[in-house]
């Protein structure tokens, strides 16, 4: 039956060799041996280690019992589960070393000779198969290890390459940062720093264009810098630094502003018409933007773009957002410093300008002078083409009271400008609030038209509100459209408040002067009435009485010498009273002043004063009554002071008229040291001068005489 034996062995070999591992070869061997020889139990045992076993419940092969089966020629029995002890057939295996193939079955005991031979053959096959599988397992393990190593090497290589790339990236980032930081450290102007940031960001991400924009109020952003990277095409960009753009809904900028995170736009298909216009304008293909956070708020953004003009333009590579964000974050401090410095400088300039204007307001300069100063300061501060101050008139027109402009143009100080067309002046009037426009227009003779003709396109302004009422407007104009920087209106408004205060002060002063003038005039009028009453009443009656006394005296019989002497004395007394009364009346208001004017009145006064007085009076003619009265009383008071207090020996009085001003100069050689605070005389003089809007200058150093110079306007101011 050798053919059968061979076939069974071939079948066994086929099954065992088809096993994939040493362990499964062992298991297949015991199973197929058990099946072939109709056995319940088969096992390969190596010492106390059961290599493979079948016929026992899962995981319960009795290693102890099986290990006792030794190849000493004795018949061993092992227990077949559920059946009992049966003789075990045992064959030693070449492999695993020291292993034994054990087999036991129920039914007739023992193996036939051919079955024994088959079992030995199977044991040989099993050894070979397991040894081969062992080698294959080792080989497989080695190959797997080698594969793992190769995979690991490839991974390491990739990682290394990536790290090198990242290092290169970092190095370029560092270099870029250093260049920007150098600018920051050198306190370069903000616009230079922004330009550097835009360029470095674009260069870093190998984009075609870099841009820095600042978010402003009212959904706008302002271009701070725009840089072409690989070409010198900045000039070709139809977008300029300082230009304001709307933050379009759905745009990359809107996304950055809303999320505070980097964002990208790789396709511009299906975007809004306005966004598509911007795309066409700049030739955008792919754009990435990252927020610039300053002081915890989104200050603006840095964006880099691939332009469609590039050969084969594609989107910026994945991960660019984070690189840009990292770069921007590192730059935020620099930007923030630069911005802070720029803000600080601007603030300082603004404060200085405000202080200068405030000083002018405090010293009470005439409004016209103040207005000139304000418009000049504002034009310089806002870097505007022109700044002007206008007053709203009752007839619905405006008057340009002051203006300052670039050397190239001159804003005429016009009145009756209309508010037709589009202008900030009209907008402020209708709203009572600050306003701006980017597109001035209007017919000739209108504010809009006038400034448009001067080459201005955009403007901003703030109302001047004086004591609750809209008085006027302060405006700044620029030549370019959309050139009004954000926050301009508020900056203008700071000046309008000062101007309003000044206007309010000036009005109050005018009212005060008028009030004083009215008081002085009333006093003078009273004096004149008293003088007239004295002259026409008491004086006339005393004269009549004196004449009657002369008549009575003439009628006294001779021999009445005593009576005559008494009457003569009474007559003298009467004349004396008359003189005294005339003198008093003159003091109250010299009639000669009313009748003959200032020159004769002063000459009369000089004659009557106790201090020698030298008069030098030009051809002055008759002057307004308040001016004559003021000049007269000023000289009178000065002469009295010189005589009574200064111990002067001579007084020089010079009087002249220049243009519309009366100039009066009084100098004595007395003790000096006159102080307005110490006597009411000089205060009275100051009041009179102030009431007429004149000026009084007192120079009275002790021991050097007193010099008094007065200027009185001949026309009401």
């Amino acid at each position, binding site marked *: 039956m050798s053919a059968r034996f061979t076939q069974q062995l071939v079948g066994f070999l086929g099954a065992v060799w088809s096993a994939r591992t040493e362990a499964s070869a062992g298991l297949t061997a015991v199973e197929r041996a058990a099946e072939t020889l109709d056995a319940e139990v088969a096992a390969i045992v190596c010492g106390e280690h059961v290599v493979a076993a079948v016929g026992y419940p899962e995981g319960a092969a009795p290693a102890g019992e099986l290990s006792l089966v030794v190849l000493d020629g004795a018949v061993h029995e092992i227990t077949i589960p*559920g059946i009992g002890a049966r003789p075990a057939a045992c064959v030693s295996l070449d492999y695993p070393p020291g292993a034994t193939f054990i087999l036991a079955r129920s039914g007739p005991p023992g193996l036939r000779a051919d079955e024994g031979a088959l079992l030995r053959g199977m044991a040989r096959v099993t050894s070979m198969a397991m040894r081969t599988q062992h080698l294959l397992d080792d080989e497989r393990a080695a190959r797997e290890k080698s594969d793992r190593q190769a995979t690991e090497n490839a991974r390491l290589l990739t990682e290394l390459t990536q790290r090198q790339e990242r290092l290169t990236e970092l190095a370029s980032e560092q270099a870029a940062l250093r260049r920007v930081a150098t600018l920051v450290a050198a306190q370069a102007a903000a616009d230079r720093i922004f330009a550097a940031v835009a360029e470095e960001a674009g260069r870093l991400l190998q984009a075609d264009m870099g841009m820095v924009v600042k978010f402003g109020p009212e959904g706008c952003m302002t271009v701070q810098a725009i840089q072409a990277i690989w070409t010198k095409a900045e000039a070709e960009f139809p977008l300029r630094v300082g230009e304001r753009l709307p933050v379009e809904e759905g745009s990359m900028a809107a996304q950055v502003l809303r999320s505070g995170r980097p964002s990208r736009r790789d396709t511009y298909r299906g975007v809004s018409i306005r966004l598509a216009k911007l795309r066409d304008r700049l030739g955008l293909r792919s754009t990435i933007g990252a927020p610039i956070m300053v002081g915890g708020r989104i200050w603006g953004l840095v964006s880099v773009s691939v332009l469609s003009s590039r050969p084969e333009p594609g989107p910026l590579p994945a991960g660019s957002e984070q690189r840009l964000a990292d770069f921007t974050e590192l730059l935020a401090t620099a930007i923030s410093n630069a911005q802070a410095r720029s803000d600080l400088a601007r603030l300082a300039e603004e404060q200085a300008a405000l202080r200068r204007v405030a000083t002018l307001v405090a010293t009470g300069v005439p409004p016209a002078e103040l207005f000139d100063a304000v418009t000049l300061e504002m034009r310089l501060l806002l870097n505007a083409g022109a700044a002007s101050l206008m007053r709203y008139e009752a007839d619905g027109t405006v008057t340009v009271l002051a203006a300052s402009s670039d050397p190239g143009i001159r804003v005429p100080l016009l009145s009756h400008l209309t508010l037709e067309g589009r202008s900030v002046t009209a907008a402020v009037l209708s709203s009572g609030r600050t306003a701006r426009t980017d597109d001035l227009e209007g017919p000739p003779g209108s504010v809009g038209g006038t400034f448009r003709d001067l080459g201005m396109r955009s403007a901003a302004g703030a109302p001047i509100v004086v004591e609750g009422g809209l008085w006027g407007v302060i405006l700044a104009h620029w030549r370019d459209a959309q050139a009004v920087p954000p926050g301009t209106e508020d900056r203008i408004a700071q000046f309008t408040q000062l101007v309003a205060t000044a206007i309010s002060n000036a009005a109050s002063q005018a009212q005060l002067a008028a009030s004083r003038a009215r008081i002085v005039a009333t006093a003078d009028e009273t004096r004149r009435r008293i003088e007239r009453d004295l002259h026409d009443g008491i004086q006339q009656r005393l004269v009549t009485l004196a004449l009657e006394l002369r008549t009575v005296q003439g009628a006294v019989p001779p021999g009445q010498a005593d009576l005559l002497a008494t009457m003569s004395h009474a007559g003298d007394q009467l004349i004396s009273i008359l003189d005294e009364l005339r003198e008093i009346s003159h003091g109250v208001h010299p009639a000669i002043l009313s009748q003959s004017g200032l020159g004769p009145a002063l000459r009369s006064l000089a004659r009557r004063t106790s201090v020698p007085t030298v008069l030098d009076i030009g051809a002055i003619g008759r002057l307004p009554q308040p001016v004559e009265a003021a000049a007269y009383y000023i000289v009178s008071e000065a002469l009295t002071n010189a005589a009574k207090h200064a111990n002067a020996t001579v007084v020089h009085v010079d009087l002249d008229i220049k243009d519309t001003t009366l100039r009066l100069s009084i100098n004595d050689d007395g003790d000096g040291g006159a102080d307005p605070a110490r006597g009411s005389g000089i205060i009275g003089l100051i009041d009179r001068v102030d009431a007429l809007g004149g000026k009084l200058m007192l120079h009275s150093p002790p021991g050097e005489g007193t010099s008094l110079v007065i200027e009185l306007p001949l026309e009401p101011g």
Partner: protein
Amino acid sequence: MPPNRWFAVGTADTSAGDAGGHAADAALIHDDAKLLIVFCSPAENLPDLIGQIRSRSGGVPLIGCTTAGEITAKGPRDSSLVVTALGGDGFAIGTAAVAGASEDLRGAGARAARCLPSPPDHPHRVLLLFTDGLTTDQDEIVRGAYSVLGASVPMVGGCAGDGLKMTRTLQFHGDDILADSVVAAGIASTGPLGIGVRHGWRAVGEPMLVTGSGPARVESLDDRPALDVYLEHLGVEPGRADPDVLTGLALTNPIGLSRHSGEEQVRFITSADFERRSLTCNAQVPEGSLVWLMEGDAGAVLEATDAACSSSLAPLEGRPPLGMLAFDCVARRGVLGDQGIVKEVSRVTDVTGDMPLAGFYSYGEIARTHGMRGHHNYTLVVLSVA
């Protein structure tokens, strides 16, 4: 008080209203059922039938399969539903279902076998298996189960049928109706269990050596094309045979593998590859095996029935069985004819008296009592439960 162990069978025509309910009601004679075993002809309303049974039995574990005919004490039937109930505290049951079994038949057998409970006071155990009868390598399922159970636990069961349509068989587990699966019930009992395995076929003529074989295929016998050798042994000129002729011959002329002890293991030839001149079997025929042409007649087959029944009763040590499960090869039905199978079942009931009987005609039988092999053809397998 219900008995410690009980066994009952209910049956109904699958087309009858609430067939599942009626069959279950008949089987559930006490309210402590532990396992329901369901055999059913392939029917359109299978889900309804299972649902009806489950509506009566609740969560009692259930396994079963479709058949090529059902067996009860009343005789063989088609288009019927047979429900067997095992109940009482004398039984401890575990069940399992492994779907997608064909991907790993050995693993499926192993996983199914792990359901067997092992309470110490229930010493008698058996693994009841139902597999997809159209699966080619049933031996792998048995190997997997054996690797878990070892030699001490026998296996018994059948391969599901589909009324000879040979397209799709189904297995039942709980509420699930599965295909390509292995379902199992591990039965542990306080009472003994007996298994009888007989086919009654005889080896005739000279043995043939399997010199070339593959999975479910015999390439050569005695180094010649297997189909030609097979036909020559039957006295048929190879050139005259066609597939139809072969099918007719094969049904009554299986081949048998010699075994160390007991009957030859019979292998059913399902078809032949006339190009390659090879035979197709429904199970493995290992290279190096000696095979014989088998022949049988109604008398021998019926004698085998008697022998299977009586050998299943032997381990019961004289105790009367509570009931019997029978897994009868559908090919035996072909040999016996419709009258023959009626006679066969009456021969069984002659042995068992009026005890309950349930079984089905299968596409292969499972019975492992000794050795490792457990898959059979042309065989009657009987499980007697005491």
